[in-house]
């Protein structure tokens, strides 16, 4: 029997395969070589690829990201690891003002990937739990992906590495060892910019990505027992995002819940919601609803964090309210 692969193994597989296929791919970051990475994504990579391609760096996010920009401009395909997504702010400028704008300004290509271990539910507190996509979402020139299953984690990483633009790769820590799947043997990619329907339904749509895809699927399972059919749209890519898929589903069900783990105000969901309202208003039977984490820093203590984040109960409550329209 073929062995199922965890989400984190899928990331490692994708990275290893790209490094084997293309000598211009290399990794850089803190503790990624000798230690194999804080989460062990690059475990064993140093032995296979050597110190030049698995570059242990000083603790300096701006230098890591700036180095990636420079190496990308000079023909390489760097994969920079932020130990936690939260730390990307120390190198924010390199991403939003440098990597994102080079091609538009003078035509240089910046094929780099920034791996961002993100998300809560792991009792990491305010600085080891954040979802950082909204900080980058409004920066033209960037791409952002957020896989929810091992298949997509691998396929999107490979697509990100092959892309000629800076791609922020949001990998959710909670999913690392909790989600497993049997993966195909072939060299596949998941194209950036396209989402998929995870589960079909006619009564209500959940538009989501990353960790909350799993909450939506659990809620859909529950509601099916009550005779309601929930369509779950997994966006997979946040920037650019699959407007067509999202709108088709909204038009079909007429009721939409936009769901993400990042905090509510100014989140990606606000844009999704605006796009749906602007383009599918005549098809809607209810206002587009949003469910996200509350607008506070990510709290540490279990009950606080539970209150902060979306969970299946909260998703069910939101969906029932929508279904009541």
């Amino acid at each position, binding site marked *: 029997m073929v062995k199922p692969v965890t989400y984190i193994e899928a990331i490692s597989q994708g990275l290893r395969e790209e490094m084997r296929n293309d000598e211009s791919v*290399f990794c850089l970051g803190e503790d990624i070589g000798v230690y194999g990475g804080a989460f062990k994504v690059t475990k064993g990579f140093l032995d296979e690829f050597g110190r*030049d*391609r698995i*570059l242990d*760096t*000083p603790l*300096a996010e*701006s*230098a*890591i*990201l*700036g*180095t*990636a*920009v*420079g*190496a*990308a*401009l*000079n*023909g*390489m395909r*760097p994969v920079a690891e932020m130990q936690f997504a939260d730390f990307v702010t120390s190198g924010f*400028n*390199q991403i939003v*003002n*440098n990597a994102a*704008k*080079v*091609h*538009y*300004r*003078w*035509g*240089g*290509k*910046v*094929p780099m990937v920034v791996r961002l271990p993100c998300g809560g539910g792991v009792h990491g507190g305010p600085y080891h739990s954040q979802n950082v996509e909204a900080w980058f979402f409004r920066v*033209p*020139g960037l*791409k952002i992906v957020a896989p929810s299953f091992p298949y997509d984690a691998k396929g999107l990483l490979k697509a990100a590495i092959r892309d*000629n*633009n800076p791609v922020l790769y949001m990998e959710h820590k909670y999913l690392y060892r909790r989600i497993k799947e049997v993966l195909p043997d072939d060299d596949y990619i998941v194209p950036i910019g396209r989402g998929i329907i995870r589960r079909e339904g006619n009564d209500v749509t959940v538009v989501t990505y990353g960790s909350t895809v799993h909450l939506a699927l659990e809620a859909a399972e529950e509601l099916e027992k009550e005779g309601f059919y929930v369509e779950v749209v997994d966006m997979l890519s946040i920037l650019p995002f699959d407007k067509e898929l999202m709108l088709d589903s909204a038009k079909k069900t007429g009721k939409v819940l936009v769901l993400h783990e990042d905090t509510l105000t100014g989140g990606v969901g606000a844009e999704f919601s605006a796009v749906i309202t602007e383009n599918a208003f005549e098809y809607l039977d209810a206002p587009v609803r949003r469910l996200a984490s509350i607008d506070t820093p990510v709290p540490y203590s279990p009950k606080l964090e539970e209150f902060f984040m979306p969970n299946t109960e909260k998703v069910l409550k939101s969906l029932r309210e929508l279904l009541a329209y």
Partner: protein
Amino acid sequence: MPRTVKNTGIKQKKRSEPGEYSSLLSKKELNKLLYNMKLHRESEERILKLYRQGKIVGGVYTGSGMEAIAVGSAYALEDEDILVPLHRDMGAHIVRGNPLKRIFCQYLGRANGPTKGRDGNMHMGDPELNIYGMVSHLGTMMPVALGAALAGRMRGEKTVALTYIGDGGASIGDFHEALNMASVLKAGLVLVVENNQYAYSTPNSYQYNSKNIADRAIGYNIPGVIVDGNDILDVYEAVRKAVLDAKAGKGPTLIEAKTMRMHGHSAHDDHKYVPPEKLEEWRAKDPILRFEDHLRKSKVFTEKELEKLHDKVLMEIEEAVEFAEKSPLPEGHEALEGVYAD
């Protein structure tokens, strides 16, 4: 192709220490250095004129008084090396082969400039010429240069990346991050600090509390060199040595070139915060006049040759201005193009 250096036997009597590398420069090369410094100076003077005529709609930042640094440093690179110039380094662009016509198109926001009108002034790069364009946030390009050098090394090439920072920009965190990391990784990075004594209006005494910025090299365990930024041969000497050291795998060098910014921060800045006597003092050290004087005294060039060179420079600039003014502006809808690479 490595640049051929020939010993022409020119005695640099006026120089206290004849340089190991600069003494090898041929008459043709010395001519090129002077020519490029003059192109730098006169282009910027012409650009200021266009600015005053309202033909340049954005900011203009010049490297007046600093031409020896831009030209002398960039001239020390080989073709395969990477140049990451800043806003006062017009001469570095020119040395690298960025054509004057394109540079003027850039300032005038034309569709056929290096950024197609999407960015202005010295914010330009050219992938073909291995010039990486700067961003306004000073310091940001230092780790970028480091990464470019590492990329070359990973492919087994002896790539060196040269970039710059000012006395103000050296206060930014990236200065530390890049130099520390470059030292740890023994990267082929050459950083030239263009210490022109003012960051916009902020004098050095408000910027750092030590004698030299080059002294910081001690903390990174890398060579820290101080050069006379108004002496092109001194600049070339130090940068050439740093480039060759980097190619030999010896790691980065920090070079501090002491100079003075002879214009305001940008064209709109009246520069009144600089005492006039200070400017007078530095005017006497003008890098172009000094180099001309040196060439005259060492009988490398005759007065006539120098005059001819000056006329050639002015003529080329007028041609470039004419070309740029006749070039089309981009259409509004072209703003949509090029956000993403294919």
